[in-house]
């Protein structure tokens, strides 16, 4: 989905709030939220793609203003309700207030047809597609051409795995893009390497 979570290349953001050796957690509840979502994954209540998509489906205004661990918490609450572990009413009774949940998911999809096995050095083009479910193709590479650096392991296909749709695990490719091709006259010069699922790629002609 073309959600606000898809941050790469967005303009208007400011300086990085960087301090060397910065902390991971600030408040005690953040450590608990992080541990509890990990526990739910280990119990098989949801997988990592479902968890990520639970964050992506947050109300955009809430996503942008929420802290990192509030996003964790919102996906966790959403999936516990969607999976039938608890009702929203019970959760809100326990929390003594409104519990924001993410919007329902669009349908998933299985692997795409006509997938090719690319070799290092092959020029590939990212398919010019708009899919409303979970997808691990950042929008900044959509329709762009890059060069395959290497094949990387097979993984569950995110577009299916986040939605309970059957699919084959598929190869991923380390694809290098020139920043000048991604954002003509609008980027610092660099090679940007992206891990791209086979279903997202065509051979460039």
């Amino acid at each position: 989905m073309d959600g606000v979570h898809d941050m790469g290349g967005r303009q208007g953001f400011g300086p990085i709030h960087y301090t060397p050796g910065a902390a991971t957690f600030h408040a005690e509840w953040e450590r608990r939220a992080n541990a509890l979502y990990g526990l739910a994954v280990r119990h098989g209540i949801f997988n990592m793609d479902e968890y990520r998509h639970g964050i992506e489906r947050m109300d955009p205004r809430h996503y942008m203003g929420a802290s990192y661990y509030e996003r964790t918490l919102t996906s966790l609450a959403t999936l516990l309700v969607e999976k039938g572990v608890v009702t929203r009413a019970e959760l809100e009774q326990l929390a003594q207030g409104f519990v924001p949940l993410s919007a329902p998911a669009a349908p998933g999809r299985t692997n795409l047809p006509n997938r090719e096995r690319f070799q290092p050095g092959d020029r590939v083009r990212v398919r010019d597609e708009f899919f409303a479910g979970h997808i691990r193709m950042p929008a900044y590479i959509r329709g762009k051409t890059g060069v395959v650096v290497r094949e990387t392991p097979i993984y569950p296909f995110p577009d299916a795995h986040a939605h309970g749709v059957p699919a084959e695990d598929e190869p991923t490719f380390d694809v290098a893009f020139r920043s000048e091709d991604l954002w003509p006259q609008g980027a610092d010069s660099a090679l940007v390497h992206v891990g791209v699922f086979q279903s997202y790629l065509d051979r460039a002609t």
Partner: protein
Amino acid sequence: MDDQRIAPTRTASVEQRTDAIQAVMEARGMQPGAAIDSAYQLAEEEWVPLNGGRIVAKAWTDPAFRQRLLANGKAAAAELGLSMPPHHRHLVALENTADLQNVIVCTLCSCTAFTIIGLPPEWYKDLDYRARAVRQSRTVLKEMGLDLPASTEIRVWDTTTDTRYMVIPTQPPETIGWPEDKLAAIVTKDAMIGVARLPGT
């Protein structure tokens, strides 16, 4: 989804929401208290940057290990007793040189090789870093205190699959000949993300 529900007017605080979820998991027999204790211990004692530091130190001092690391990072990490979660199927070690700086980001969320380099710092998960690192890499690094010469090439690695990355920083010349354990201790999380170089490099 909940016909009986009357939406509350006041939003529960993050602490209240966390407490509620923990209570649900407790009631379902999932033992969240033990999971929280274990997560504290993992974050503080096991998922520490010293793990990655040991990998880097060995790569600096053992050319055969360096080759194995570059060929298969996860297997090389396992040689040192370092594991990764099952869904992290691959670890790619990215070697910096005097003329090349690798830098890692996750534009879509916050993916990191957290068992190897430690859990990601706050700034790594912030919207500013995620938005800008791929597009304004040199500017961002400069703002963060790493002012690279124009001749230094930058490669940005966006962690969009469950393959994980770590940067092998260049070794400070004055540390050549040091024992591995002393070398491991000088390697920082930020250097393994690629936003910093080690002193003297």
